[in-house]
């Protein structure tokens, strides 16, 4: 696709690149459907045009100032093994068996797809990733802790880590050449280098139209599927292919849910736990305290009852004993009086006689 410099700069302005308002973060806890920043940019990769020449890989290496490759870029035997991104390469072209025969192999590009709502950005606890308004997902190594949660989160297995660097390892990934070229009004390295125009750079909305236009113009050449239109909520990179995508190493089972939504409800539970747990816990605490208190009171009451009963019984016994003693005393007095009277009577009789 031909592209004039003026048109390109126009897009950049529209995408807010000339301003300073970068750095919007993908927020997780929301039900809002995000369809990408307006007028954001992207790349359409048409696998039916790709000849597997690795020119894009060489360009990527050069513009990003990456370490020299293990084998030169014009060595196409490299394609015999399946490769993935690593700290030396932000993108790779892999070769797959053709649908017709092995002599007409198919190729596919693997690299950052610049999700509209990136898993890496959502999973990063220092916000090292930014989905810029241009569409590019950038990475800031100056805050990165190196926890590698982004690598676990990325559904496309793209971010790579400098495992061999002892103290300052970084995540490495394609940034759509944001800092090095986009801001200067230049095309991403791979796009510019491709001799077959397998890559088309432009506004994502335009790219979707271009893709559909190609499907219309060349019936039978493409599958009716633009990979990246909906995958993981949509990506800024889009893919056209003549064979099912899973045959060229791309997962078709990722679904269309943006990654942040998988964690948003779990995160939304946090304030609820913080709010309700104290109530619940203090409630249980109060109930168990109250049970203790009631048990204590009941114990005391039972004790008091028993004590009272024992006391009453004892009192009764004491009073009975008193009564008995009093009766005995009375009897004794009576007896003594009687005895005295008798004695007195005896004396009287003696005197009279």
């Amino acid at each position, binding site marked *: 696709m031909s592209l004039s410099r003026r048109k390109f700069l126009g897009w950049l302005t529209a995408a807010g690149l000339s301003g300073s308002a970068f750095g919007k*973060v*993908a*927020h*997780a806890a929301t039900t809002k459907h995000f369809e990408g920043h307006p007028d954001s940019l992207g790349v359409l990769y048409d696998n039916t045009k790709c000849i597997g020449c690795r020119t894009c890989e060489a360009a990527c290496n050069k513009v990003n100032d990456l370490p020299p490759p293990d084998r030169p870029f014009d060595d196409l035997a490299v394609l015999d093994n399946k490769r*993935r*991104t*690593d700290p030396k390469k932000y993108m790779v072209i892999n070769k797959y068996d053709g649908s017709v025969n092995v002599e007409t192999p198919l190729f596919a590009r693997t690299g950052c797809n610049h999700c509209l709502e990136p*898993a890496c*950005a*959502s*999973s*990063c*606890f*220092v*916000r*090292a990733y930014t989905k810029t308004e241009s569409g590019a997902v950038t990475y800031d190594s100056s*805050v*990165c*802790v*190196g*926890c*590698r*949660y982004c*690598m*676990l*989160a990325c*559904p496309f*297995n793209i*971010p*790579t*880590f*400098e*495992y*061999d*660097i*002892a*103290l*300052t*390892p*970084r995540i490495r990934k394609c940034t759509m050449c944001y800092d090095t070229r986009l801001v200067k009004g230049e095309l991403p390295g791979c796009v510019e280098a491709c001799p077959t125009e397998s890559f088309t750079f432009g506004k994502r909305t335009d790219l979707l139209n271009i893709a559909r236009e190609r499907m219309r113009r060349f019936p039978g050449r493409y599958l009716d599927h633009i990979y990246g239109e909906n995958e993981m909520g949509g990506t800024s990179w889009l893919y056209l292919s003549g064979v099912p995508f899973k045959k060229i190493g791309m*997962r078709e*089972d*990722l*679904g269309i849910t943006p*990654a*942040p939504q*998988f*964690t948003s*409800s*779990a*995160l939304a*539970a*946090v304030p609820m*736990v*913080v709010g309700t*747990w104290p109530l619940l*816990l*203090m409630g*249980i*605490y109060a109930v168990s305290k109250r049970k203790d208190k009631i048990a204590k009171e009941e114990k005391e009451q039972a004790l008091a009852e028993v004590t009272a009963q024992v006391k009453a019984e004892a009192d009764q016994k004491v009073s009975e004993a008193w009564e008995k003693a009093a009766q005995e005393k009375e009897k004794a007095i009576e007896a003594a009086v009687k005895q005295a009277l008798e004695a007195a009577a005896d004396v009287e009789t003696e005197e009279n006689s």
Partner: protein
Amino acid sequence: MSQEATTTEKTLISPFNIIAGIIVLIGLYLTVRRFTGGLGAVTNLSDNNAWGIWIGFDLLTGVALAAGGYVTAAAVYIFGMKKYHSALRPAVLTGFLGYALVVLALHYDVGRPWRLPYPFVVQAGTSSVLFEVGACVALYLTVLFLEFSPAALEWLGLKKARNLAVKFTLVLVVFGIILSTLHQSSLGALFLIAPSKVHPLWYSSFIPVYFFVSSIIAGLSMVIFESTLSYRFFADKMDEAHLREKDDMALGFGKAAAFVIAGYIAIQLLGIGADDEWRLLGTGYGLWYLVELFGFFGVACLGFAIGAREKKVQLIRWTSAWAVLAVIVNRFNVSLVAFNYHLPASDRYFPSWMEIGISVFLVTLGLITFRFIVSRMPILYEHPEYEDVH
């Protein structure tokens, strides 16, 4: 002269010390290697397998097994089960050391450990589950430190500070339970973001609940297990109350664990039903899932239930070890076995001996510290000056 030699032999050259010494030396060597050669020099981690056993074991399992602190504190202070009071201090100490080791282990695992505070002081990524985990673990480590501090202050003879620390017990306990609920579940929630990478039998939107409930299993079992080991090695440090209550505690905690495991198995099956994954149970992964759920958790549930009903303390003690193993198996399954299940065997991860070495080294450090503290501070007995002051 000869007498001196025997004394030295008694105090320093014990089997524990020799083995621990060798492990520490290897650990120090591996530490140097890690921080001079990078993660690549000691681990089998790769771009496809970003997290290995330092996360699967040291972080996920470590945090789960340190759950005894909050579980026991909840039982004693919130549910009012005062008869388990003697189990509290050892549980809080184990929790504190466990979390301290988790944080230490993270220093090995992350690329730039000195930046670990960055999410809280430089730039906060609040949309990340890892942010929540980090914040809760940091706060909970502080809570555990404060909960543990009375024992240390009694040892140091700082009466006023000790009495002040004790005053905050209930607040700390409530705060600790909230934080534990959050991060125990969030450790599971970490995997929510990658449904395409975790085998569906282990991936579920309920995974935070699974992790939280199984942390209670781990907490209860660890308290029993740890009490068994303490009795074996530190019986002389235990006071009468501890010796009297420990069997009672094992029976009570075992009974509770039986119920919790039964509930855990039920919600696991509900999750399978909710996602309608019954057909996957017939596959190889399905078999392994069934082994985990019934062979490990189910058997533990049965052991605890029978032990509690028949009052067989010995059975409960053995079962506690099995239940701990069940939780370890679960954490390994989620983070390592079921993770990246779709990749060919050649792209899968298996830890290097050096990764295992560092993990063993850290556990050994924990044991040494535990022994140091238990032999000195009032953990397994009440300090004579503070008896009956709760």
